[in-house]
């Protein structure tokens, strides 16, 4: 009975540790999303509808990720990138399907926040390139949200 209790204790401890680790990893992506939404907040007052859906993941320093997105001529879009790693530097840029930079000059980056603005000249696919430029973390969580009006 003692042996069984020990096994039960070890198994449940392992399970608990696993659950905690899982929650921690989800929490980090959620944190990154909350920072991306924080960057979006002032734009909501300007009439931008921020989508509930978002992209997220983790990247090493200097690593990039491309996100393909259908944009419609006539709409105006902002893409906001955030990470919870406050000493990281991130960037986001928008290219058209030919690889030409398509964003407006008021796009910006500031530490662990960045944003890119586009008024598409044509309807079609665009590439949103997110990058962790610098980070003290081995892998840095990121989240990208977008809004349109």
């Amino acid at each position, binding site marked *: 009975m003692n042996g069984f209790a020990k096994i039960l204790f070890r198994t449940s401890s392992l399970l608990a540790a696993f659950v905690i680790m899982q929650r921690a990893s989800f*929490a980090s992506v*959620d*944190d990154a*999303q*909350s*920072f991306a*939404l*924080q*960057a979006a*907040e*002032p734009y909501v007052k300007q009439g931008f*509808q921020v*989508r*509930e*859906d*978002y*992209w997220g*993941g983790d990247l090493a320093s200097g690593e*990039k*990720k*491309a*996100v*393909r*997105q*259908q944009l*419609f*001529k*006539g*709409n105006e879009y902002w893409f906001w990138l955030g990470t919870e790693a406050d000493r990281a530097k991130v*960037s*986001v*840029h928008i*290219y058209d*399907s*030919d*690889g*030409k*930079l398509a*964003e407006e*000059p*008021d*796009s*910006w*980056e*500031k530490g662990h*926040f*960045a*944003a*890119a603005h586009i008024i598409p000249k*044509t*309807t*079609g*696919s665009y*590439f949103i*390139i997110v990058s962790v430029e610098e980070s003290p973390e081995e892998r840095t969580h990121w989240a990208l949200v*977008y809004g*349109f*009006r």
Partner: protein
Amino acid sequence: MILFSKHLKLSVAAVGGLALCAHGAQAPQHININQLSMTVEDVVVPLPNEIFGALNKLGAVNWKEHVRSDKGPNFTERPRIALLLGAVIADGFIAVQAEDAPTVKDIGQRVLALAKGIGVGNSITPHAKAIIEAADKRNWENVRQELDRTQNSVQQAMNEVHDEKLSQLVSLGGWLRGTEVLTSVVKQHFSTDGAELLHQPDLLAYFQTRLKAMPEFNLPIIHQIREALGEVKPLIDVGNAHIPAESVKKVNEITTRLGTGIVTRD
């Protein structure tokens, strides 16, 4: 969500000042798209109201004539419910454009019933309630936001139980209904700018790939959609050329046929 609320409590001025003190972004003027192919994430499917917003800017649209509020039959096959759920959420966006409060409220109830039918009712109940309340107050912005949240919650709940394929069918149902209405509007008052909104070849390819990976959903409607997307592709994948009125008409015929198939029992 708790964390998000906490962050929202931060000074709006501090957040608002972020853009003002930020550095201008330095980026290469040109990149090689082909080198990105291995690191490209899946597309986020646009909401119907994203397309409707662009359509509105081209001229006044009589949204009332596109409102659809029939309850339709109750299905038992989960893929059919998922497709219908996406289409009904799209109908919600159309009813918002038409500012039709009674239809929005009916749609709120319908969405809840369909979500229950697919086993994700619990995550939708607060959104359905919020849709109905916002429609009562004619707060259209809130209705739009809750419809987006509804779709997101449904899909998240499905993804959590590894029903990603059903989640993709929700997006597909919404996209088909949105495309049906888009082509119907553009067909009536043709313009090249309106037709250009159909230029969505990557999105179409995305749906085609996803449908190919669903052999287990052996239903006539799924087969019909798979074939129909093959018909639509050459009509909208025109590169830099304009999409002609004839193509808009054909896409409308195809999506209307599929839309009828989605809401009708076999």
